[in-house]
């Protein structure tokens, strides 16, 4: 009996002693009254400097043109597409946590879904910047859309590039809707708890007058569940379409059917690494380790391990198919990856994505924040290198040796990449400051219900 109690404590999704009221106070106080830790100001300050660097690089790009970047002939795609794919992949874990895990009734998603959804929204913003900016004339970006224009021309709907426009813009819209809908009841909590006039008014407007009525909740839950049900195929379609950008081309190393599943798994892999990167500091700074528990970290590490193996399988199959296809160009591409000028990047990505995450097999290390942080950073870097290798290695050795070239990101490329990292971090820090980083309404459903006490919903009661 005592042993099972101990086990239950270790695997609890919520710290002991929490009631609906204490949960409400704890999460809303972070936004309404709590003094923010010094680390918040330090990180936000540094991130804001990098976000300003982004503004600088954009201005320079507008005045000079995309010649300030590294792409050349034959490497026509560089940091713009590498970073686009990296960022949008990161966003996918947020949708996975909020939508797919909701449909699978994984209750542990509840304390991390809000921050993961925020991460999605900001990552998609960073991703969206690249295709717009790489057109060189972003003020003409509306040419991408199927709208009547003075030239009388229309998009070509057989191309994966226009599919990308549809997929990414739908994804950005639905991610924001999903995030906002989740926030409505929490805005109402903040409105009701706020003591300052301005907080009451602003959160009150955002809550739309939400008053927790039973009929409203019912429609709300239906809408939320349907959104989750639609986001699930959506998120799979988005990275599938992103992979079509490559797979539909006849470039060696791109023209392969394994791309869609392997891109989707890679996206989830990268995204969970980013969720860990963000939630571990939050846990420490705001003392919410009773809400984002060791069990959460443990589960996220397991997802990381599983998706890591799917990605590893993808690398293996890619290599196998290069020989199995019998295509000289494919075979050369693989040998060039293994021992060509970018071999360092290829071997580094195998180390960071396939080898280092294997320490997560040790249960103790899955609950050790330093080990987790190390693995998360390793995967963040590894997944960036993966896109670098896919794009640069395939392009820099063209079909004719006379057209071979080399590629390296220019300092403006690097400055813009650091700038998007700064923008992303700034937005995330502002989110922590002004919005509840854990879903208050959903957490309350996890409080066990004891008859006669002011706790819990029927859903949680039935579960225990």
């Amino acid at each position, binding site marked *: 009996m005592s042993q099972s109690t101990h086990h239950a404590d270790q695997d609890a999704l919520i710290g002991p002693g929490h009631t609906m009221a204490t949960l409400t106070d704890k999460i809303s106080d972070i936004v309404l009254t709590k003094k923010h830790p010094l680390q918040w100001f330090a990180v936000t300050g540094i991130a804001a400097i990098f976000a300003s660097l982004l503004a600088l690089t954009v201005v320079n790009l507008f005045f000079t043109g995309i010649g300030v970047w590294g792409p050349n002939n034959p490497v026509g795609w560089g940091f713009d597409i590498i970073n686009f794919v990296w960022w949008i992949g990161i966003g996918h874990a947020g949708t996975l946590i909020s939508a797919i895990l909701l449909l699978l009734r994984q209750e542990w998603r509840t304390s991390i879904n809000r921050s993961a959804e925020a991460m999605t929204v900001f990552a998609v913003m960073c991703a969206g910047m690249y295709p717009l900016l790489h057109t060189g004339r972003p003020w003409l970006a509306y040419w991408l859309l199927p709208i009547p224009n003075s030239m009388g021309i229309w998009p070509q709907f057989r191309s994966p590039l226009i599919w990308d426009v*549809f997929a990414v813009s739908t994804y950005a819209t639905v991610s924001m809707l999903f995030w906002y809908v989740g926030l409505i009841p929490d805005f109402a909590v903040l409105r009701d708890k706020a003591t300052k006039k301005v907080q009451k008014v602003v959160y009150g407007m955002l809550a*739309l007058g939400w008053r927790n009525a*039973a009929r409203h909740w019912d429609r709300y839950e239906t809408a939320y569940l*349907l959104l989750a049900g639609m986001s699930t195929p959506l998120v799979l379609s988005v990275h599938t379409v992103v992979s079509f950008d490559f797979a539909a081309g006849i470039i060696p190393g791109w023209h392969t059917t394994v791309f869609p599943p392997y891109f989707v798994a890679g996206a989830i892999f990268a995204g969970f690494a980013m969720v860990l990167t963000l939630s571990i500091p939050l846990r420490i700074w705001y003392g919410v380790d009773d809400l984002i528990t060791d069990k959460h970290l443990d589960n996220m590490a397991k997802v990381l391990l599983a998706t890591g193996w799917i990605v590893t399988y993808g690398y293996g199959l890619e290599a196998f198919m290069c020989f199995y296809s019998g295509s000289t160009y494919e075979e050369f591409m693989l040998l060039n990856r293994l021992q060509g000028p970018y071999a360092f990047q290829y071997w580094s990505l195998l180390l960071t994505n396939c080898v280092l995450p294997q320490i997560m097999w040790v249960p103790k290390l899955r609950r050790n924040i330093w080990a987790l942080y190390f693995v998360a950073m390793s995967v963040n870097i590894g997944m960036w290198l993966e896109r670098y290798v896919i794009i640069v290695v395939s392009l820099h050795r063209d079909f004719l040796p006379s057209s071979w070239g080399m590629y390296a990101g220019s300092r403006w490329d690097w400055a813009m990449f650091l700038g998007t990292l700064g923008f992303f971090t700034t937005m995330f820090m502002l989110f922590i400051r002004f919005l509840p980083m854990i879903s208050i309404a959903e957490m309350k459903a996890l409080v066990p219900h004891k008859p006669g006490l002011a706790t819990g919903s029927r859903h949680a009661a039935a579960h225990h």
Partner: protein
Amino acid sequence: MSSPQANAAPIYGYLAEFDDKDALFACAKAARARGLTEIEAYTPTPLHGLPEILGYKNYVPHMVFMGGLIGVLTGFGLCYWVSVLEYPLNIGGKPFNSWQAFVVPTFETMILFASLTAVFGMIILNGLPQPYHPVFNVEKFARCSSDRFFFIVLSRDPKFDLNETRRFLAEQKALSVDEVPH
């Protein structure tokens, strides 16, 4: 306490406060058994089974289905109209109506339209945004978003009676019963 008046309802309704959801469920069932229809419950989290007791129909799924259907027609219609009628281009000898390729944009517009319908349909059916509502006049109602459960009987209910209804709510395990002014 204002003195009850004979005919015109001077208040919006009576609001009962509970600290336990079981008591709220019992109260809702008792109210339905008495034939009260203009009733509503307010709870910090969604409680399954409660809306069924209150009695209403949820039209969100129907709206979302229609939204998705319109999305499919719009998406495919756009691809077809552009590629076959308005701006036919020979791309690698593929037919103008390359419907397989049009599946992807069609799928995305379906998701987009259905999602927008789900969110705005829910908001509109809920009558939001609604900046003012009489229940907010009761100060303790602010605890509803924290940990308290509330039950209201509206004065426009045909069976509403200033004394009878108040007595009925007081007989439940309510912490308090308050008048809700208009």
